[in-house]
């Protein structure tokens, strides 16, 4: 916990960066990739394997996705760690904090790995 206390400014900076990035980018991704695509609202070949593979194959797209997802995960962890405390009342934040950041870190690593591996 001492350790996390010293990292507070960094975690807050990540929280702020991730909050801004998610605010700007997330809605359009959810809407196009997870709603419009399954419902087939656009040209069908926009969503096939070749199209997706060509997009993900581009190094700029990979970098973009990493910069999008990693700070977003840490942004979310910063808020999630307090939700049980706020909704269920004490015990105080205590253990929820390191757990939330560990999960965010694990997901961030997973995200970077699959982004790099995807064709």
């Amino acid at each position: 916990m001492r350790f996390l206390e010293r990292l507070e400014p960094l975690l807050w900076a990540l929280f702020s960066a991730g909050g801004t990035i998610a605010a700007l980018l997330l809605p359009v991704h959810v809407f196009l990739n997870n709603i419009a695509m399954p419902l087939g609202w656009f040209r069908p070949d926009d969503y096939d394997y070749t199209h997706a593979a060509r997009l993900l194959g581009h190094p700029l797209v990979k970098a973009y996705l990493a910069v999008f997802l990693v700070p977003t995960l840490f942004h979310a962890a910063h808020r999630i760690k307090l939700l049980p405390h706020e909704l269920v009342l004490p015990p105080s934040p205590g253990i929820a904090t390191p757990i939330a950041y560990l999960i965010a870190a694990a997901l961030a690593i997973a995200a970077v790995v699959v982004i790099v591996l995807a064709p």
Partner: protein
Amino acid sequence: MTLRVLPRRRVYRRRMTLTWWVKNPRYVNYILREASSAFLTVFAVLYIVQFALLAAGAGPYGRYLAFIKSPAWVALNVIILIFALIHTVSWMFLATAATPVRIGAHEAPSWALTISGLVIWLAISVGVGYVILRG
């Protein structure tokens, strides 16, 4: 330094109740905005799974494309979208209140910053959308 006027057992402490946030619409707003973070995480997980299947090749990715046609998937993502929008709009209010932007000697009014933020968001969304669809 101790200034306590009375020993602690002589005072009455009113405790917060489980429903504290229901009583004030601004608290409800706050909890919704904080809860949005859970849905941002769910979205990130869905994206990670999608990329993993893409990495696995055309076969698994084809099965993914078939799976996402289910109504449950669309329903889940409509909820994610609602919370994503809650996050975007509330963030534009929070970020602009927290960041002083000075124009000359005066601070820019935060409503002007909020509106600029929303305009920038729409412009970026159109740009990202174009790349996803046509890139």
